[in-house]
């Protein structure tokens, strides 16, 4: 009879395990919907895009292998979170001297141009990927997404969200300082 009574604790224990898991999920910030970044640690995908600036040459591999780390940012003028991260990109380019490469994703060139004119253009080179062909090669799932490519052309960071000040301070700048 005693062993039977212990069995009554089983549902309670199950509940405790489930509650523990859910609580841990809440606290740890675990996000099952997060795609993750398979590209980190691998060589950067191919960069090939027509320039958004009339008269400038198309963007190519050379930009990723200049011997300096670069930040590649995918954006679009129709994307509100891109608007939010724009001041940070400006700051990275102007204050921290980071080389930024922009790619307007699924965005008409004239619209992307007008957007950059209005908000300021932080990019050393900026191209566009109208049909999203190149973006699949970069594992893009939306905009904005930002990649930090080191001097050897290897992806070091991949943000599938607008970058925040704490990303810049805690992750981007330390890596850039360590690399250069």
């Amino acid at each position, binding site marked *: 009879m005693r062993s039977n009574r212990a069995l009554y604790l089983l549902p309670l224990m199950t509940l405790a395990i489930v509650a523990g898991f859910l609580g841990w999920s809440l606290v740890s*910030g675990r996000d099952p919907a997060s795609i993750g970044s398979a590209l980190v640690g691998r060589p950067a995908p191919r960069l090939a895009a027509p320039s958004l600036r009339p008269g400038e040459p198309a963007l190519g591999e050379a930009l990723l292998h200049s011997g300096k780390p670069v930040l590649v940012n995918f954006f679009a003028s129709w*994307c509100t979170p891109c608007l939010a991260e724009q001041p940070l990109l400006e700051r990275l380019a102007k204050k921290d001297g980071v080389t930024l490469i922009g790619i307007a994703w699924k965005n008409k060139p004239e619209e992307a141009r007008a957007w950059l004119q209005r908000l300021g253009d932080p990019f050393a080179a900026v191209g566009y990927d109208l049909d999203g*062909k190149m973006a*699949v090669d970069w594992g893009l799932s*939306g905009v904005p997404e930002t990649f930090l490519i080191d001097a050897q052309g290897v992806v070091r960071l991949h943000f599938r*969200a607008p970058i925040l000040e704490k990303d810049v301070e805690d992750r981007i700048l330390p890596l850039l300082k360590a690399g250069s």
Partner: protein
Amino acid sequence: MNRTPSPNSKAERGPRLSAKAERGPRVERPLRRASGGEGRAHRGSDGRVRWCAPLLALLLSIAPALAVEPAEMLSDPALEARARTISRELRCVVCQNESVDDSPAEVARDIRRAVRERLVAGDTDRQVLDYMVARYGDYVLLNPPFKARTWALWLGAPLVLLLGAAGLWVASRRRAAALAPPPLSEAEQARLDALIKPRD
């Protein structure tokens, strides 16, 4: 990725996920309406045809609309069939449990196109899947691969089932033992023997 920023940033991230929200996903989905069958049915003198045709039309209209647009398809039917099979295994990265083949999202369309381009370039099915996994991780596979990180996922459910079955078996054995009558005492046995002893 530990992000718990300001309350409104969640709303901001919503539209980031795909161009879908901004552009209306439904536009891509060709509306397939079965038509033409009904008119002919009424003219038919055969009674069976009369109700068969509308039924067929109804059934056809129930068939889900294809996310794959005719313009996307490859002219080579064998390659196209392989592309369809592969894109059914790929998970749309901005949807909830929807394959790239089923999803009208723009990113899903881009991935379908990339799959076809790789196939035309001569990739095997395995290579195409590997190409996508290299970019989107295992997340992009609807069938997660069996490896160290996923063994609990694959074996967990059968394990729990086995444990439950074992528990039930043990319990039923115990119950059977508990229900069996206790053995007779010596006095009882003697009485029983006396009762069943044949009288001479």
